[in-house]
C-alpha cells in the first residue's frame, strides 16, 4: 500500500516545458487518467516517475519515500508501454515471468505466470514469441508483465493505442476491475477522453505541461475548469460564442447572434467579468421549426447522419457556426432549412475570455 505523490514537478527539454509545477496525488487502489492532447507531456511525466528521466525540480514520493535519483529497478514501479516493448527473443511466458521481482523457484514462477495469463485470457499463447502474437495478445502480454510483480505504482502509457476498436471496447470494460485487483496506485495515460472517462476514478487534464483540472469524470464533463478542458471533452466538441453577459430582472442574459438568451440565474461573478466565452455542448441544443422565447434563428448547413444521432452544422445570422447532435429519430432537420436553436440555461457554461477559466469557480489553478 503506497501512495504516489508528485510535488511541483518541473522538467524542460530546451525551451519546451514538458512539466510545469505539476502536483498530483494518487491513492493506493486509485486509477487516475492523465489525459491531454499529444505533446502535452503525458509520456514524459510517466517516464520521470519510472526513472528514465529525472525532473529538473520537484519531488516524486512513493509510499512517502522520495525516489528521485533512484535507478528504475529500485522504484517499485510497473509500466506498460504504448509500443508494448516486449522482449522479441523470449516467449510470452518468459516475457511475463521477467516481471517477477522476487527470485522465485521455477515452478512458483510458472504458476504465477499461468494465473495472470488466465486472467488476461492469453494462456493459450504463452509458448509463442512476440512476433507470433496479434496486437491484442501483445498488449495483454505487456499488461501481464507489468501486473505480475504487484508493483506499488503502475504506469500505463496509452496501452490501448495500438489495438483495434473492438478490442479497445472490450479492454475498457475489463481493465478497471483488473487494475483494482491489487492496491497499486495507477496512472493511466490516454489521448482518448472516452477511455479516460470509462476507466478512471479521477482524470488529470494535462495541457502544455500544466494540470488544468483534476476531478471525477462527470465533474470534468459537466463543470470543466477552463475553455481548454471543455474543448477536449466531448465529440463533437463544445460550441463557443463570444458574449458579454448582463444581469437583468434577476437573471443573466446574453446576446447570441442578435437574439437575447436567458442563461439562468447563474453566477453573481458574471457581471464583473465582462467579456466571456459561452459554451454549450452539441448534445444540449434543441432545434425546432417554431420561433419562441430564447430561440435563435439559424440555418442548417449540413447534416451528418451517424445512425444513433445526427450531427448538424448550424449557421447563425452573423455567420457563427455551431454543431448540434440530436437523436436521429427527431427527424425534423434537413439541410438548408431555417430553424430555431434553444438550450436550457443549465447547459450554458461561461468562461472568462481573458483567462479561459470557468466563471463561478474561484479563480485559481486547479491543484488536487
Amino acid at each position, binding site marked *: 500500500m503506497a501512495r504516489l505523490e508528485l510535488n511541483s514537478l518541473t522538467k524542460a527539454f530546451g525551451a519546451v516545458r514538458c512539466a510545469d509545477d505539476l502536483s498530483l496525488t494518487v491513492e493506493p487502489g486509485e486509477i487516475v487518467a492523465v489525459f491531454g492532447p499529444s505533446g502535452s507531456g503525458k509520456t514524459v511525466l510517466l517516464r520521470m516517475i*519510472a*526513472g*528514465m528521466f529525472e525532473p529538473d525540480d520537484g519531488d516524486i514520493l512513493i509510499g512517502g519515500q522520495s525516489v528521485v535519483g533512484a*535507478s*528504475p*529497478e529500485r*522504484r517499485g*514501479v*510497473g*509500466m506498460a*508501454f504504448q*509500443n*508494448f*516493448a*516486449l*522482449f*522479441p*527473443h523470449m516467449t510470452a511466458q518468459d516475457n511475463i515471468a*521477467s*516481471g*517477477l*521481482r522476487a527470485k522465485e523457484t521455477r515452478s512458483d514462477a510458472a504458476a504465477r505466470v499461468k494465473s495472470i495469463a488466465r486472467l488476461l485470457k492469453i494462456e493459450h499463447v504463452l509458448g509463442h514469441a*512476440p*512476433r507470433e502474437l496479434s*496486437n491484442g495478445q*501483445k498488449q495483454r502480454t*505487456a499488461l501481464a*508483465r507489468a501486473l505480475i*510483480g504487484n508493483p506499488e505504482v503502475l504506469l500505463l502509457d496509452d496501452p490501448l493505442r*495500438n489495438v483495434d476498436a473492438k478490442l479497445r471496447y472490450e479492454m475498457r470494460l475489463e481493465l478497471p476491475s483488473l487494475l483494482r485487483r491489487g492496491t497499486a496506485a495507477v496512472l493511466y495515460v490516454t489521448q482518448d477522453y472516452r477511455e479516460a472517462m470509462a476507466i478512471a476514478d479521477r482524470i488529470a487534464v494535462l495541457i502544455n505541461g500544466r494540470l488544468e483540472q483534476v476531478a471525477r469524470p462527470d465533474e470534468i464533463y459537466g463543470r470543466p475548469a477552463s475553455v481548454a478542458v471543455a474543448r477536449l471533452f466531448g465529440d463533437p466538441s463544445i460550441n463557443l460564442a463570444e458574449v458579454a453577459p448582463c444581469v437583468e430582472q434577476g437573471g443573466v442574459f446574453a446576446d447570441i447572434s442578435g437574439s437575447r438568451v436567458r442563461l439562468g440565474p447563474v453566477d453573481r461573478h458574471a457581471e464583473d467579468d465582462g467579456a466571456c466565452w459561452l459554451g454549450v455542448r452539441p448534445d444540449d441544443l434543441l432545434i425546432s421549426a417554431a420561433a419562441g422565447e430564447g430561440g435563435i434563428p439559424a440555418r442548417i448547413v449540413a447534416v451528418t447522419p451517424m445512425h444513433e444521432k445526427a450531427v448538424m452544422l448550424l449557421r447563425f445570422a452573423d455567420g457563427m457556426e455551431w454543431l448540434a447532435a440530436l437523436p436521429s429519430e427527431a427527424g425534423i432537420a434537413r439541410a438548408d432549412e431555417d430553424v430555431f436553436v434553444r438550450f436550457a440555461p443549465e447547459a450554458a457554461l461561461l468562461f472568462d475570455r481573458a483567462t479561459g477559466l470557468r466563471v463561478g469557480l474561484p479563480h485559481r489553478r486547479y491543484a488536487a
Partner: protein
Amino acid sequence: MDHSGLLGRIFRGVALTLVLVFFMFPIVWILMMSFQTNEQILRIPPRLLFEPTLANYEALISGQLRTAAGNLEISFMRNLFNSFVLSSAAVVLALLLGVPAAYAFARFKFRLGETIAFTLLSFRFAPPLLVLLPLSLYYQQLGLNDTYFGIVWVYQLIALPLILWIVRGYFEDISPDIEHAYRLAGHSWREAFTRIAVPLAGPGIAAAALLSFIFCWNNFVFALILASADKQPVTVGALAFVTASGIQYGQIAAAIVLSVLPTLLLALYAQRYLVEGLSLGAVKG
C-alpha cells in the same frame, strides 16, 4: 512481377547462369589449378580435362616443396595456424572492447562522443603504411615486435572500427523502451545489457565479427613488417612460393584453396544467423 511465363523463366535461368559463371570462375579455376602440376597449368591452350594430382596438397601439408632447384622447407601449415590464432584473437578482443563501446555510443550522448566515434572510424581509411613505420619503431622499443600480442593489437585497427560502427547501428535500432521495461521489472542495467541488448543485436554482432575476421585474415602488410617467419599468417607465407626456380602455381592454388576454406565455411555457417532474427516483431513499427 510475373515470372511464370516460359520465356521469362528461360531468360531468368540464362541470366542466373551467366552471373554465377562470372563470379564463380576465378574460384573454380583456382580449385582446378590446385589439382594440376605446374606443367599442366602452363600448357597452351589450357585444358578443362586433366589427370588430377594431390601433389600440391601433399607438399603443403608435409612442408616439403620440391622444385627444380631442389627441396625447399615451407611452413604453410604453421602460417595457416598463425592466421587462425591471430584473426580469432583479434576478433575476440575487438568484440570485448567494441560491443560495450558501441552500446555506449548508441545509448548515451556525451561530450566528444561523435568525435571519438569518428576518429575510430578514420582508422579504417588511413593507409596502413602511414602508421606502420612509426608503429614498428614503437614496437621495437616496447618489445612487441614479432609477438602474437603485438599483431593482435595492431589488428584492432582493422577490427575495432568495423565492429563499433556496425554494432552501434544495431543497438540504435533496438527501442530503448525494451531495455527500460526490463529494468523496471527489477533488473540492473548490466542485466539489461547482457540479456536484452546483446541478444537482440546478436545478428549484427555476428555479421560484424565475421567481416572483421575476414579482414584480419586477409591482412598482409601489418604482419609482413611486424612479424618474423614463425608468427606470419598465410597471406605473408604465400610469398615462399615465389622461388628461385620459378613460381609454383599449383602450390599457390592449393594454398589459396586451403586458406579460403576456413572463412568460406565460417561464412556459410554464420549466414543462417545473419538473416535470422533481423525481422523481430516486438515493437509495432
